[in-house]
């Protein structure tokens, strides 16, 4: 843990950077390492100085890079900065659940302080930090502090004021604990790595692939693609060089189940990657870990070390960690690959898909953390046992990260097919009016839809489940989500680059009731354009999200005016109290 950041003399800085490079990249820096190098420099020095960029230029082994291109990469990622670092850097999580828990007040307190002491403290916004069950949350010099309240904020400011070295800060501040509200097979599974691998080896890759096919496992990262199909495509792809990538970017606001799996089921996940490597014939694996989860890095490194020592991953298949740098779009698998190659995270044109053209152009499997955990479960207990839970179309269980207006925010593992209502009961959401399932890019559902099943055929979810009671207003949700999409749009394609910005502005006017019918129609038009013309899922779901919220809002406004003219039924049904 590094802090406070120091202002270093040019020569001291240069030496320190050279030491850093020598320590982490003894074999020299290659183009594909660029993002990792930039993240390391950022983490160590708090910013990417021009001295640092020159050092990188000089150290690059395989190709020259201009200053402009380097700045282009830095300016793409939220957590990399070109301006000098304050001693302390705070990123406040700006997810709707953080705001609901009082983040605005903390923002005010902290920015007031930073305005007086800019060289001491810098305060910025980040998208969801993956701590929604214990928000409001922040990152301090990259490390999470959850459960913010006025006292804790004061405590943080006192430590900033005293300029205590970060490792001397009360460790209690940095505790990240999540309540497991309900366990299922994935969270209960204790795999014996040796036994699982022996079994895979004895039955052979093809047999296991058949078993995986029988299991019907669908990806848990959101899209629900059939995992066996993906692996088969990659297995069939030409070439001796292949990769396995675990998508631990977990950027969807309200999602923290991958964090919990990384904390508690890491061995199962690594085993799942190992099995995948066996099946598709890959020699290397990567865990693309979002920068927000830097605090988990030592835990992951030591697990990998242990696996290496036990010979479970070895020369034949090694796994490394790649850090993100603050970019939701990098969870999209092709943007993720670009990012892994050290570039700006712009989604690629698909096809070709990663299974044939992935990392460095080589066949690559990209799967979610939870998907790999399920693979290990299937390897251990078989497809039949796996299919005992869930539905025919969506076998198995799903982890939901529950936050917002409920008594027991945390992780709920439920068989696919369980209803929204069941989930709400488990977490003690008594006064729930709306749920946002699957995060901003998912579905906004109200009470009339709570009997629907949570599965890939009905209400599909990557694992975010945010609960809103009747005090929450749709325009506030819309504004928060639209600002999120505008912040996270990569800027590549017209509809999303321009449209998310326009939607963010319009939603702000809607919040303050400064919209008319023409503007509402404009919002619909923009959403429709995003849905139909965007290059990647981010823009498409941004349009979908806006459309759903506006629909609900309009319904409510209609109900309200009907209620005024004495048609009470509809008004009660939509329950105006919870909406605008």
């Amino acid at each position, binding site marked *: 843990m590094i802090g406070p950041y120091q202002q270093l003399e040019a020569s001291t800085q240069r030496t320190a950077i050279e030491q850093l490079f020598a320590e982490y990249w003894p074999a020299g820096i290659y183009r594909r390492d660029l993002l990792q190098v930039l993240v390391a420099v950022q983490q160590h020095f708090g910013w990417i100085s021009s001295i640092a960029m020159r050092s990188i230029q000089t150290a690059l082994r395989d190709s020259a890079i*201009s*200053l*402009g*291109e380097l*700045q*282009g990469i830095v*300016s*793409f990622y939220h957590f990399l900065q070109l301006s000098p670092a304050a001693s302390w850097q705070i990123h406040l999580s700006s997810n709707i659940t953080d705001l609901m828990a009082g983040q605005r007040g903390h923002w005010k307190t902290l920015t007031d302080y930073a305005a007086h002491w800019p060289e001491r403290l810098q305060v910025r916004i980040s998208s969801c930090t993956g701590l929604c069950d214990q928000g409001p949350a922040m990152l301090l010099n990259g490390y999470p502090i959850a459960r913010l309240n006025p006292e804790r904020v004061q405590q943080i400011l006192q430590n900033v004021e005293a300029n205590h070295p970060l490792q001397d800060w009360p460790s209690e501040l940095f505790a990240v604990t999540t309540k497991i509200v309900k366990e299922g097979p994935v969270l209960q599974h204790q795999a014996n790595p040796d036994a699982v691998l022996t079994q895979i080896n004895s039955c052979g890759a093809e047999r296991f692939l058949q078993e995986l096919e029988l299991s019907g496992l669908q990806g848990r990262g959101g899209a629900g693609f059939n995992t066996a199909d993906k692996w088969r495509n990659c297995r069939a792809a030409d070439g001796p060089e292949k990769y396995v990538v675990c998508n631990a970017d977990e950027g969807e606001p309200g999602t923290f189940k991958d964090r919990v799996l990384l904390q508690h089921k890491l061995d199962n996940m690594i085993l799942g990657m190992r099995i995948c490597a066996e099946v598709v014939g890959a020699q290397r694996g990567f865990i693309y870990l979002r920068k927000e989860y830097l605090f988990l890095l030592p835990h992951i490194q030591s697990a990998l070390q242990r696996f290496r020592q036990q010979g479970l991953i070895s020369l034949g298949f090694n796994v490394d960690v790649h850090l993100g740098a603050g*970019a939701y779009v990098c969870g999209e698998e092709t943007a993720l690959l670009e990012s892994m190659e050290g570039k*700006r995270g712009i989604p690629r*044109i698909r*096809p070709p898909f990663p299974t044939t053209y992935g990392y460095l152009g080589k066949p690559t499997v990209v799967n979610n953390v939870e998907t790999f955990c399920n693979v290990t479960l299937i390897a251990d207990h078989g497809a039949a046992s796996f299919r005992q839970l869930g539905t025919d179309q969506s076998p198995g269980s799903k982890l939901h990260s529950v936050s917002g207006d409920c008594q027991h925010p945390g992780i709920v593992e439920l068989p696919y097919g369980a209803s929204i209502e069941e989930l709400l009961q488990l977490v003690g959401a008594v006064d729930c009016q709306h749920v946002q399932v699957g995060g901003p890019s998912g579905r906004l559902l109200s009470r009339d839809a709570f009997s629907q099943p949570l599965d890939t055929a009905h209400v599909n979810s990557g694992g975010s489940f945010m609960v809103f009671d009747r005090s929450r207003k749709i325009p506030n949700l819309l504004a928060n989500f639209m600002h999120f999409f*505008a*912040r*996270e*749009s*990569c*800027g*590549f*394609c*017209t*509809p999303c*680059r*321009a*449209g*998310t*910005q*326009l939607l963010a*502005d319009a939603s702000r006017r809607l919040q303050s009731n400064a919209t008319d019918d023409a503007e509402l129609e*404009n919002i619909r*038009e*923009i959403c*429709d*354009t995003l849905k*139909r*013309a*965007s*290059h990647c899922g981010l823009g498409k779901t941004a349009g979908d999200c806006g459309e759903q919220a506006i629909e609900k809002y309009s319904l409510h406004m209609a109900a309200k005016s009907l209620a005024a003219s004495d048609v009470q039924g509809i008004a009660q049904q939509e329950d105006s109290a919870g909406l605008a």
Partner: protein
Amino acid sequence: MSGMKSAFSFDGIQIAFTSGQSIMQAVLDGGGYIPHLCYHPQLSVHGSCRLCMVKVGDRYLSACTTEAQNGMQVENQISELRELRLKLLEMLFAEGNHFCPSCELSGNCQLQALAYELGMTHSRFPLQYPTRKRDGSHATVFLDRDRCINCEICVRASRELDGKNVFSLSGRGSDTALQINSEDGRLGSTDLIATDSSARLCPVGALVFKQGNYAERPNERLYDTHIISETGNRRPAVVSGGYPELGE
């Protein structure tokens, strides 16, 4: 089966293609037209402007990134797509500063020409009035980033046709902006010369020549007298510093 001739239907007309060709390539080769800004036949495919959206069944696809398939039914000239493209155009106009009447490229600009073609009268979306840095440091080429549509044609042309690496994009989202890859970030410090393709392929008036502008009278310029769906996307020699056209 590469090289084998196949065909697909394009607004009811049969278009022949060779395997591996995109819908865009096949249609342009066949003498047809699909609105486009970021596509250029001599450059790698980008897929960012989205003006080329076509409909295949109930799917919306960008023609420049989608491989043609035998027997495919592609819809292009339908009111739904006209409306979609119109909105995309209006978004482009809203996010930049396009003061057409006084722009050097007026009458020869592909963005403006598409606006004519689609019957755009105004942008229904609130104008954003960006204030990005301009760059007048180069002897012959001027850059106005507020007119740039981030199509990366100059970026690609520099790398792929000129064998240089003058441009790239920086920032993200609505902060995305064209960046110059020189030490001081200025166009004047690069090896860009007037004859470079990258200096004369910009579809809008973001990268323009400093001299020789306004040589044609209004009403005599390319898109005053032609519609873009008939001429195709062109930047006439007169606004390319007198150098012959590239490609299309």
